[in-house]
């Protein structure tokens, strides 16, 4: 997993729970990297799972809760670093992930293993169905980022996210049905 995700996670944890807790987290969690992450490096995704689990244990927040919140924090950082010209709606952005954004990611980082996020049904700006499929159990992170995207582009509008995880690949594979709550 890309180092920028680890650094963003630690920044998020520091902001939410304080520098002392993050220091304790890094000292007490056995990590191959020793807790040293650079934005341009690659690290085993098991380390993020270990960090989320340890943070959950230390704070009492569930891993799902932490990952959704982390996703909501990660999205603004990523979108400010890589502005998407011409995108006016969150659905447009989500539709670009598979064809455009991940292709650009691979241009910069040929070794990057990006999740497969494919839209397969859209009704204007009211409804969108997407499938998340990844080698990592990060459906919660994805959900948090979807929430952040909806907020970023459609502030003030109310959307409901109905998530259905795969029975056999829980957290690895999930369908997201994003639907406008007011039915406009």
């Amino acid at each position, binding site marked *: 997993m890309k180092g920028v995700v680890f650094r963003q996670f630690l920044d998020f944890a520091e902001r939410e729970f304080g520098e002392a807790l993050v220091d304790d987290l890094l000292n007490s969690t056995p990590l191959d990297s020793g807790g*040293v*992450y650079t934005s341009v*490096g690659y690290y085993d995704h098991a380390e993020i799972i270990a960090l989320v689990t340890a943070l959950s244990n230390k704070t009492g927040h569930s891993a799902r809760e932490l990952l959704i919140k982390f996703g909501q924090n990660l999205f603004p950082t990523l979108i400010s670093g890589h502005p998407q010209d011409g995108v006016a709606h969150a659905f447009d952005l989500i539709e670009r992930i598979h064809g455009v954004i991940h292709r650009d990611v691979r241009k910069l980082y040929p070794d990057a293993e990006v999740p497969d996020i494919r839209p397969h049904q859209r009704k204007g700006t009211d409804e969108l169905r997407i499938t998340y499929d990844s080698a990592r159990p990060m459906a919660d992170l994805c959900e948090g980022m979807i929430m952040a995207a909806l907020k970023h582009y459609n502030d003030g509008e109310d959307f409901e996210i109905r998530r259905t995880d795969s029975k056999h690949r829980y957290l690895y594979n999930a369908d997201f049905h994003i639907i406008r709550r007011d039915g406009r």
Partner: protein
Amino acid sequence: MNPDADIIARLKRKLEREMAARAAAESLLERRSAELYEASEQLRVEARQVKHLSTAIDVSADGVAITDQAGVYTYMNPTHASMFGYAHPQDCIGLSWTTMYAQDTLRRFESDIFPQFQRNGYWRGEVTGIANDGSKVHQDLSLTALSDGGILCSTRDIGIIRRREAQREQLHEMLLDAERRDALGRMAKSVGHDFSNILTIINASAKLLADEMHTDLFDILVDRIMQSCRQANDLVLDLMNFDTAPERKMCSLSDLVRDVGDLNSNQFLATQGNEILITSEKLICETDPTLFSRMVFNLIKNAREAIEEDGEVCVSLELLEDDQAVTPDFKPSAFIERGQCNSFPAARLIVRDNGTGMSQKALDTAFIPFQSTKGSGRGIGLTTVDALLQGQPGRMRAYSRPGEGLVIVIDLPLQTAIAHKTDDAPRASNVSNARGALVVDDDEFHMELVTELLRKFGWDAVGFTNPLEALSVFKVAPSAFGLVMTDRRMPQMSGDELVQQMLQIEPDIPIILNSGALASPLPVGLAATLTKPVSEETLWATLDLIGRATPQAAQD
């Protein structure tokens, strides 16, 4: 624990982690930078190779084009564009490949070509395209499937190859026909020659009988015999002139040798060497193109038949500014020279082989009609050399050594040289007044008949059946002779050759060519010609015409 110390320790650990992260990032960046440099170098090398390949494709003699998945041309080289009548490849980019084929060809693509292409990813065959101007383009076409769904088309215009093959076929047929006609002609001449001699005897005998016996009935019968002889003689003349008149015209020897060389090329084994070296100069000469082609064809054919499986034949045609010696690769043990080449520049044709070679005896007879060492494979066809040199100035020299090979060198003055030569001042006249007359004819009866008639007219006539003997006598005492009469077709030496050699010795000697075969071209320098059979009247008339009816007349 002191809270400040705790904070300091925590910050220190954070700083250490950040420093370690920075060092790791720098190390990673250095590694990536090095990898990027290597990749860019590799890319540069590959780009250079691609550029070279692209240039090669652009200048290729074969047409190359690429279509995308939809069948639209995305690349075309100039050859392909030109093949289809477009000035620039860009004119074709964006066009569908289907615009270059007629409907029936497109149906063939659908029903036959594409199924095979889709099955194998490759197809090759012949198709006919349509050029921009509507003309047909006969192509040898290769289609290769590309990974992106496009097609790589490689094509060659086989219209030129077909036309070239047709020309070669035509030339081959022409040479075969000429060979057949030549064989027939030689047979006709041979029969005519012998029959002419018989007629001469009948005619002369009838004349003698008429002189001796003077009864009316006898005169009538003799007249009938002589009339019949004249008619028979006309027939013989027709027979002997069978299709032998050479058709001389300005020809490019370079083109003829190249064509004949190409024609022979597929007769050689893969292990045999066959080299054709032709000067880039255009060598123009007035000659009979069929006869010249036959001669070259025969020389190459003979050379090919003489070499082993690993032997070599080299044919060269070069410009000769002045006379130059030839140096064979071996020390010749046999040599023969025929004809002369005194005018330059000339074209020099050399046919070399490292085959069985020829002995002096074989070489001496190889160029004489009916006398060549047929069966050995070397004499057949060499008479065409003589036939050519009888019709135009030129020289043939052959060098050989049995077991080593044969080199035949033919020098033919070019048109510019001959034109220059004819501008030379005429020779001063110095006609001999001697009483001697030399009669040469391989037919003994005819030789004796003419000799007797000349003696009757007052000449000291001496006769020979062998022209070589006659020449040797003439060489010893040329001034003893004031007249020469010679037959034309003789086995040891042709009358034409004898005339040339005698005129070289004594340029002013009057020579009468007396033959049943007086077809052009005649040797230069003759005083007169006289058709066989000879009678007292025709001989007297001919001699009188040149002021040589008697030795006294010559002195006057």
